[in-house]
């Protein structure tokens, strides 16, 4: 089975949020999002209260998947970064450790060069957190929620 479940714990989530906040400040960004490659929003920082983070995450993942498809057609491993230029908001998208997507929204207060530079550092930190997370999950050091869930719990969810 190709399913590789992503499990997030409080400690690592806080670390990822801290990386987002640092990047948001260092890059003079508008917002920073960490997204799972399958489109699930993981962590964010900055001016996100008016953003539809769920939709943005899904569309970004779709965009990255489509770009990955183009890469494989061209016999490229992947296109690690993407940049979209808007009138007011620019978007920088990068793939981290082939598993996460790091999205930075920025405007004229910043520049593509600065964002690229800061993203590089953040990507290294996110990779390290992801490695720790993977080891923690594999070690099974945390009790699984699913050990507690019964068939009745699942049935009850679907009772009208």
């Amino acid at each position, binding site marked *: *089975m*190709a*399913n*590789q*479940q*992503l*499990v*997030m*714990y*409080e400690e690592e*989530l*806080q670390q990822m949020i801290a990386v987002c906040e640092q990047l948001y400040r260092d890059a003079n960004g508008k917002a920073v999002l960490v997204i*799972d*490659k*399958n*489109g*699930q929003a*993981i962590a964010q920082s900055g001016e996100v209260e008016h953003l*539809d983070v*769920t*939709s943005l995450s*899904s*569309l970004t993942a*779709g965009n990255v*998947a*489509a770009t*990955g*498809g183009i890469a494989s057609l061209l016999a490229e491993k992947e296109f690690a970064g993407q940049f979209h230029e808007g009138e007011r908001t620019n978007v920088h998208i990068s793939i981290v450790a082939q598993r996460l997507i790091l999205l930075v929204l920025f405007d004229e207060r910043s520049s593509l060069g600065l964002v690229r530079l800061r993203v590089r550092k953040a990507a290294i930190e996110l990779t390290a957190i992801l490695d720790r997370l993977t080891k923690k999950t594999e070690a099974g050091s*945390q009790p*699984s*929620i*699913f*050990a*507690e*869930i019964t*068939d009745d*719990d*699942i*049935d*009850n*969810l*679907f009772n009208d």
Partner: protein
Amino acid sequence: MSFINYSSREINCKIVYYGPGLCGKTTNLQYIYNKTNPEAKGKMISLATETERTLFFDFLPLSLGEIRGFRTRFHLYTVPGQVFYDASRKLILKGVDGVVFVADSQIERMEANIESLDNLRTNLGEQGYDLDKLPYVVQLNKRDLPNSAPLTELQEVLNPTNVTTFEAVAVKGVGVFDTLKAVAKLVLTELRKGG
């Protein structure tokens, strides 16, 4: 690929609606969207052509309630049904937790159903999935049409493994939520086994 977030206490899963062009995949999602309370759903996104044919995918985030204090959230996706969008279909299957195959019951669409089901197996296989091991249900849609094929014939051809099947008229909502509930339940049960 489910995402379990112990910090925000959420279980996130991905369900994909698959099937031939014009079988009613988008209609399923539209009905679910229209009949779901605003607090339980996010925005529905349709990446469609000018003639409202799905170009890349439809997306609907849905919250189904809580299990033991964990919010269960399902991301529903459809694939573009038209044959030539195969590259896009493959991408959308990545990380799937459960599949709904929506068949068009019209006798004229039997070949298209068979082709789409074969395509589903092939595309899942390419990604290391086996349809027989995934949470999977079949929806026989458009049962109200006069030219719909007999149930036994559809079952025989499209459901040889005898997975749970629902008769549906998606435009009227018949069978839509039954299908969703069944696949969501299978997904959670599968996660429980794995956990």
